[in-house]
């Protein structure tokens, strides 16, 4: 099945839910959906397009919004589902009921971008330390690391 056929089928199956379908490269298909319809779109892709393998989830800070990319791989193509949530209320539904292997990637998103994954089975931090100050999300573009001033015992001479 060629990329054009897959895109046509996806557009038919998803109907109005697919806001934008692009194909920047061979075997790479990007589908944009609304966050409210993410779970149903992922369920459909899993059942009809054999997208049961989620490679990873990427987050992206676009200023006013956060973009979340779910990279699925089926034997036919690499289908990436894209959704955008506003920075003011970054809520997105967990896809773990459909793809149980997604939990680590969703936890990473919470740590790194401060997104709120609703109904995530395990909301604990994954990569940031236990004493990490609240409200610090390293992969947001406005976050800068400030190295604490070095204190030399006895002072510099």
């Amino acid at each position: 099945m060629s990329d054009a056929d897959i895109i046509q089928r996806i557009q038919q199956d998803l109907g109005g839910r697919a806001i934008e379908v692009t194909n920047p490269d061979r075997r790479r298909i990007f589908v944009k959906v609304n966050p409210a319809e993410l779970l149903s779109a992922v369920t459909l892709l899993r059942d009809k397009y054999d997208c049961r393998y989620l490679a990873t989830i990427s987050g992206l800070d676009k200023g006013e919004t956060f973009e979340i990319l779910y990279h699925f791989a089926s034997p036919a193509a690499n289908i990436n589902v894209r959704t955008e949530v506003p920075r003011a209320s970054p809520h997105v539904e967990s896809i773990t009921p459909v793809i149980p292997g997604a939990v680590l990637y969703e936890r990473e998103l919470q740590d790194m971008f401060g997104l709120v994954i609703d109904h995530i089975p395990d909301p604990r931090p994954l990569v940031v330390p236990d004493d990490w100050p609240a409200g610090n999300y390293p992969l947001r573009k406005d976050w800068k690391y400030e190295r604490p001033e070095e204190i030399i015992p006895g002072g510099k001479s």
Partner: protein
Amino acid sequence: MKFQIPIGPQHPALKEPISLRMTVEGEVIRDVDIRLGYNHRGLEKLAEERSFIQNIYLTERICGICSHSHTTCFVQGVEKLMELAPPRRGMYIRYLVSELERVHSHLLWLGVAGHEAGFDSFFMYTWRDREVVMDLLELISGNRVHYAMNTVGGVRRDLDEGQKAKILEGIAVLRKRSEYYFKIGANEPSFVARIAGVGLLTKEQAVSLCAVGPTARASSITRDVRKEDPYAVYDEMDFEVGTADSCDVLGRVVVRVKELLESYKIIEQIVRKLPEGPIVVKAPRKAKPNEVVSRYEAPRGENIHYIKSNGSEKPERLKVRAPTLANYPATIEMLRNGFIADIPLIFAAIDPCICCAERTVTLVNYRSGEETTVRLSDLRRRAAERQKNAPPKRNAVWPF
């Protein structure tokens, strides 16, 4: 009575420190909890501050064993962004190093598996033979670990006729040795009995938990990016995807031995077909705003990089997913309902790199809060004892 055993965070079996907390009932593991991030280096943030060329050397340092995998994955993505077509000779040399790296990684892993199963002569054999491929890598790149072969638009070093002859010679030696490993299970039934039925991961679990690489292929999933989504030179190569259907550590050994032989086949084809011509094209410093998903089959499984460019010489975003992370949820399932004595074996089976020999495990009695520290050697002694008591798995057969 339930105990909890923490393993890590300083866990010498992994490059990244990791903490595993196991709830055990007697010798049986009932639940596993995983905690990461003890050595989070903020590499994705750092990559946004570096140019594409600098990022090649940054991604090379993600991992020591599969350093070439990360740079190749990154570079093939950047070449797409810059709309470059690297010369064919350069591509052949790049994927020649990839396959040599797979051989060295799998030989290393086979030795570790033998060591964890208490079969140390196997460990000595494979690690001796691994020197052959390490010498070849040094011959090609000048380095044993960080090869620094890749650059945007091709590779940095060429091959001459003498090197080609040496590679073919070395591969002939390795093939002979690997065929011996094929037979080793038939001569050594205790090794097969030790690894059969340990760390079960059914096909359904492997699919739903998104396992990758040899871990998934040992559960009869034929997913290999080289075959499924052939990048660069792999559609010109003749090779098979090695799978096994026993879903246990035995299957993971079988898959890796099969992959070794397939890699030798690919290496020989690359060396024999090596086209003439330049090895690198000049690359621009900037990339147009675009995005790319780059997939690569690393020795441990699929490696995926998502790169977004914004028209400058630095990437807007670089997302790296290394295969070990994808295998953690599956590892939890493998450890569940297994024995404490099988922890080293199961853990080694997802191919973390065991670089130190000693590690400690603390047993905490949750009623009294009493802690006992167990050394790895002690854990191995327990493993040997359990084997003595357990009846050998008579139905376990070496599949070759």
